[in-house]
């Protein structure tokens, strides 16, 4: 019997290197939305620490590290990136599998901040938006999530169906930044 083949959201469109900036698709592994039930935030955070080694993130923050990260994703919501969620978490939060719901792009390089300054209406400069900081905002017209994952590196998430637009918007901004020299 035939098998189903998996496709990534940005397959064929990335990586892209323009000027000092590179955009490439990131395989985040399992993505799970964690939505703590009423009054269970602390318990969830404890369970998360016990199972995966990171606290439930405060607003605009990410916890954990490469391979097992939790990024705040909105009101009463975080995304667990990497591990298969421990079933014990279900006691404290609504869990939903989002592994296929997001296009994830890593934007990296000296001009990455300048590229995002053309797309995101939030101050993402290093002095205010440090490693471990995250925002829910918009990327051009798309709702998205932007996290600083390195000195010059960002993780950008938008809905999977808009992957082509994300690549288009990033490419346009990267070209404009590169053309300024």
């Amino acid at each position: 019997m035939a098998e189903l083949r998996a496709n990534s959201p940005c397959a064929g469109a990335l990586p892209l290197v323009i000027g000092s900036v590179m955009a490439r698709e990131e395989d985040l592994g399992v993505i799970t939305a964690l939505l703590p039930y009423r009054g269970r935030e602390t318990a969830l955070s404890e369970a998360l620490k016990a199972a995966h080694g990171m606290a439930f993130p405060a607003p605009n923050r990410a916890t954990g590290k490469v391979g097992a990260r939790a990024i705040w994703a909105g009101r009463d919501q975080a995304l667990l990136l990497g591990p298969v969620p421990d079933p014990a978490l279900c006691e404290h939060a609504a869990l939903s599998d989002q592994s296929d719901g997001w296009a994830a792009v890593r934007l990296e390089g000296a001009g990455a901040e300048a590229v995002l300054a053309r797309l995101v209406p939030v101050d993402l400069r290093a002095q205010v938006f440090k490693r471990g900081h995250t925002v829910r905002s918009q990327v051009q017209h798309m709702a998205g999530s932007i996290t600083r994952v390195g000195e010059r590196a960002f993780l950008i998430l938008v809905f999977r169906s808009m992957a082509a637009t994300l690549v288009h918007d990033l490419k346009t901004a990267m070209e404009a930044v590169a053309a300024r020299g």
Partner: protein
Amino acid sequence: MRITCPLCGARDRREFYYRGAALALERPAPDAGEQAWDDYLFLRENPAGETRDLWYHANGCGAWLVVRRDTRSHAVLEVRLAGEGAQ
């Protein structure tokens, strides 16, 4: 215009969806009567001055906010999460 979301911080107006008067949070009981329901759904103040309205942080954290602001100066006086505003 910028609104300081209690969760996300100060953000550009483009991230928000505007709904209208915060009165929408004060839903009458089903048997409150025609007048109460009519007031709730259709009757709105149009103040020159302080107003309370509802904004949804659509391209942000997804929180519904009660924004108290001045229609004359455009000053934003206070922003609260809608759940808190209803208390």
